[in-house]
């Protein structure tokens, strides 16, 4: 049993994923508020937009860590989400600031529904990932 770089990666990923889970919950709540009229879309976009890039960067960060640790399976599992993030950010509306959400289109029912679904899917993914990393960490610690 030794504390390897791989184990460190998993531990870090574990912590960061916990953060991402909070991001996802926040995202879901925010869109729910939008849908139920509690919030003005401009305000809501102003609070959501600054969080988009950090989330993507955190995820990209531990992907890179896994790459360095040569954890190919874990990396492979994360690649689709990474690719999705890149695609999502590339196809964002014309905006001067960082972020994804445009207050003029966010209330469109299609977009609203899409964003909500996205939130739930990510939450599920991060939760599963969280347990996977936990397992991965223990496995690495035990096996090494």
């Amino acid at each position, binding site marked *: 049993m030794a504390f390897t770089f791989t184990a460190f990666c998993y531990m870090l990923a574990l912590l960061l994923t916990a953060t991402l889970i909070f991001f996802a919950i926040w995202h879901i709540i925010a869109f729910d508020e939008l849908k139920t009229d509690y919030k*003005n879309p401009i305000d809501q976009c102003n609070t959501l937009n600054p969080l988009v890039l950090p989330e993507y960067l955190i995820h990209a960060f531990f992907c890179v860590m896994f790459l360095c640790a040569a954890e190919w399976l874990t990396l492979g599992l994360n690649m689709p989400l990474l690719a999705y993030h890149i695609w999502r950010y590339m196809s964002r509306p014309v905006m001067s600031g960082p972020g994804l959400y445009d207050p003029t289109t966010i209330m*469109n*029912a299609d977009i609203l529904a899409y964003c909500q679904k996205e939130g739930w899917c990510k939450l599920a993914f991060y939760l599963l990932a969280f347990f996977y990393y936990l397992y991965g960490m223990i496995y690495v610690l035990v096996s090494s």
Partner: protein
Amino acid sequence: MSAPAGSPHPAASAQIPPKFGGAAASGAAASADPGSAPHQQNGPAQNQMQVPSGYGLHHQNYIAPSGHYSQGPGKMTSLPLDTQCGDYYSALYTVPTQNVVTPSTANQQPGAQQMYSRGPPAPHIVGSTPGSFQGAASSASHLHTSASQPYSSFVNHYNSPAMYSANSSVASQGFPSTCGHYAMSTVSNAVYPSVSYPSLPAGDTYGQMFTSQNAPTVRPVKDNSFSGQNTAISHPSPLPPPPSQQHHQQQSLSGYNTLTWSAPGLPSTQDNLIRNHMGSLAIANNNPTVTGVDSSSTTSSASPMPNSYDALEGGSYPDMLSSSASSPAPDPTHEPDPAPAPAPASAPAPAVPQPSKMAKPFGYGYPALQPGYQNATAPLASVVQPSNPVYSGFQQYPQHYPGVNQLSSSLGGLSLQSSPQPESLRPVNLTQERNVLPMTPVWAPVPNLNADLKKLNCSPDSFRCTLTNIPQTQALLNKAKLPLGLLLHPFRDLTQLPVITSNTIVRCRSCRTYINPFVSFIDQRRWKCNLCYRVNDVPEEFMYNPLTRSYGEPHKRPEVQNSTVEFIASSDYMLRPPQPAVYLFVLDVSHNAVEAGYMTILCQSLLENLDKLPGDSRTRIGFMTFDSTIHFYNLQEGLSQPQMLIVSDIDDVFLPTPDSLLVNLYESKELIKDLLNALPNMFTNTRETHSALGPALQAAFKLMSPTGGRVSVFQTQLPSLGAGLLQSREDPNQRSSTKVVQHLGPATDFYKKLALDCSGQQTAVDLFLLSSQYSDLASLACMSKYSAGCIYYYPSFHSTHNPSQAEKLQKDLKRYLTRKIGFEAVMRIRCTKGLSMHTFHGNFFVRSTDLLSLANINPDAGFAVQLSIEESLTDTSLVCFQTALLYTSSKGERRIRVHTLCLPVVNSLADVYAGVDVQAAICLLANMAVDRSISSSLSDARDALVNAIVDSLSAYGSTVSNLQHSALMAPSSLKLFPLYVLALLKQKAFRTGTSTRLDDRVYAMCQIKSQPLVHLMKMIHPNLYRIDRLTDEGAIHVNDRIVPQPPLQKLSAEKLTREGAFLMDCGSVFYIWVGKGCDNNFIENVLGYPNFASIPQKMTHLPELDTLSSERARSFITWLRDSRPLSPVLHIVKDESPAKAEFFQHLIEDRTEAAFSYYEFLLHVQQQI
């Protein structure tokens, strides 16, 4: 939650103002029928009393209960039949255009019917008129099943004020519950009882009538027709007249078997009677004849009141009223039973039927009926239930509530089934039908509702739905493959609008819906919301009807009699004191702008219209100009001349003197005039070519943000300095590309953010783009799109080189400056539970799922909403949509304009197809296609348009089994669909292959998004008329002028002959194309030139010649112009002039190098299917 507008606190507070404001009265008057108003004098009670002297007591007693009941059942029964049959068929299904026709016929009929009604009643009446009636009604109801009952209830609610009054009187009398009377009634009449009452009152109302008995009473404003009927019924005996005559009439009119009628007294006749009544009711609405009904008065018997009422009232209530009247009468009699022999006879029959009805829970029981309609019966049941204090009768419409509406609808459904296929479903073989386009303009289809609802429904000019029969489930909608959505024109200029001043604006406590004609009154004190079905209390104030000055008639209030009303809102609807009208003009004065010369035209227009700017004594105005610097004008009162202040720091704009830049229009008028006179010449020698639009807008925002208002921006080139600068993105070589059209979206979000900031400060930015080259309208338009402004674009504008554009600017400015305007507005759209708003189209900012924030609203703004069906609508037969527009008028009043639309729900695909409003569908599709072009690509949008046809036609093909599958079939209601889609594909916004400048394309898209349907349809599919041979055949008279009505021609060169002259009406432009071989008489008499060769190339006016043909042509064109707010520019195009390409591009049925002809397009579609 908060109502329409985001108003903070919808005032739930129940204030009970002692009196309605005078405003309310005036509003009512406006809405109501003038004629009636005078009459209303007496209290309802009186009426009742008067009627049957003998019965007086009964009535009183009954009144309350009976009134209610009657409303429900009685009316229902009688009405349904007639209305359904007549209206349904003819109006809805037959010709689409019929709308107009039907109403008239309806009116006429009423008279006849009324006659009938009288006849029948008379016999029975004597002792107990009511009884007879009831019997009739009941019998009718039996025959017709439940449907009729619902109707009756309907009637009561809406129409019969009298009814109400009766009720109230009863109540007052202290008749607690239904009592013995009721019991009786319930059994036999149950349904009807109340009816009888109403009738009496109605008669009274109408009173006019002179009849001693009825006479006195109140006349509901609009009820004339009703009253007449009622009276007839109630007073049958007096009106002995003429059963036979009546019969005849009926027969002729409605084609009913009136035979029975002749023997009104007889029970057997009852059915007939009922029918008659029904018919009469339906028809009757308008009839003045009602007065005749008064029968009681001998003299009046003739029905003196003729039609004048009809016209007035017709609008809203007619059918209902009449029906109600008739039905009501019976009730009283029944209950008492004292009624004479005739009554008894009838009574038994009714009793039977009623029970059956009763048994049925809520109307769902009738399988035969369409699901939507089934509900109708239910109401009856409730009504019957008698003694309920609640009086189901009241529930008129509520969707769930099977009330009256349902009945009517159910009837309609019945009629449908029995009838052959409706016209709108007639299969048309598109490839073989050469003349798809009708000769007359296409009208909006009329929703398949009963006549009462139809009359109350919102005008299609303000509110249209793509499917006038709403599918029951999303699955059904998906099957039909048609778009579901609303087309709104909420702030349209109206000639008649009821304005209501009231301390309490009655709204549903849970969904905040405004009370409207489609709610149902459960009893006098409670109403049921038609959107969320919550039962609400009727506030005390609402019990008083300022129109009739009577108490206890909540169903007769103008709010409940008009589907378009305007409320004067209280301070509960304000976040801050109403703002004054504030206008700021931001003018480009760079070299380019000076060269184009728009300043002269603008300043001239402003000078001319300065006094007509909407506003009050607080109106403020300001001016800014900009090139590479920003110039402010200090117009503070007291200065000897305007002071120009230049700010050259465009990176950090500030206001040099914040207080004196926006000045009071009246205090500083002289300075303003000086400035406007000086402005055009101030910059003539400028060498500044740059344009700092962005900083100028930022400054404008700063200037406006304390108050809000309207900013009018005049821009002539691409902004090249400071924030928001843009680069040219258009590649001229790509203009006719068939592949990808890029740059339809904005290049920067600067303008969008600015617009959102402006919108937050209640400031709208209107853009006038007058440019000769590419100016990136796609980016600039954002400043107006999201701030609820409007966009005008004048390509190649030059005041002298392009006089037609200059003229257009002049005319547009005149309209722009003087039209109505609403400030700090919000619009909320509500719809029945189960439906939800999906996407909005138009210029606004969407603040929440159903709330649009509109910094300004103008009468030329249109909106579209896509809908989806989230929950199945199986438990309702009607759905309603309500838009509430809360705004501050230019006079500083906070007002709420409410439109309510009611539509039936259907469960079969065929009915969905039967109710398609193809024009609305096309406009909605166009809006969706614009979104698709911007978010995806133009070719995607084009494919989606073609797929819309392919899908809907193939879906239709699969539902109709007996068609030849080789042919391209469409229901008649959809036969124009492919033509319109082809027109869209050839529209500037969506065409490919033809050279189209990017700005032109984007502007066409902006127009699609923001124009109301009427204007948009002309833009998509212009109207073509041949005008060299105008005749008076079929001409109409407008204001003493004879306006010829030439038939529409299809948009194909095959219709153009060299010997003719044609007028094309494209909405904002008219073209007159003169053929080479055109008759010299025409050229000489109309154009004022001796021959074809001498006609100039650029001609934009028809001379005023004193010849018949010139007069006809001019009156026709004037008539076309008068029908729209913007005065279109006329272009006279010679056959050989280069300008003819402009004209020919609109001939959308022809082939072009890049696009299909209509026939080819059909083949293409067929292939895809």
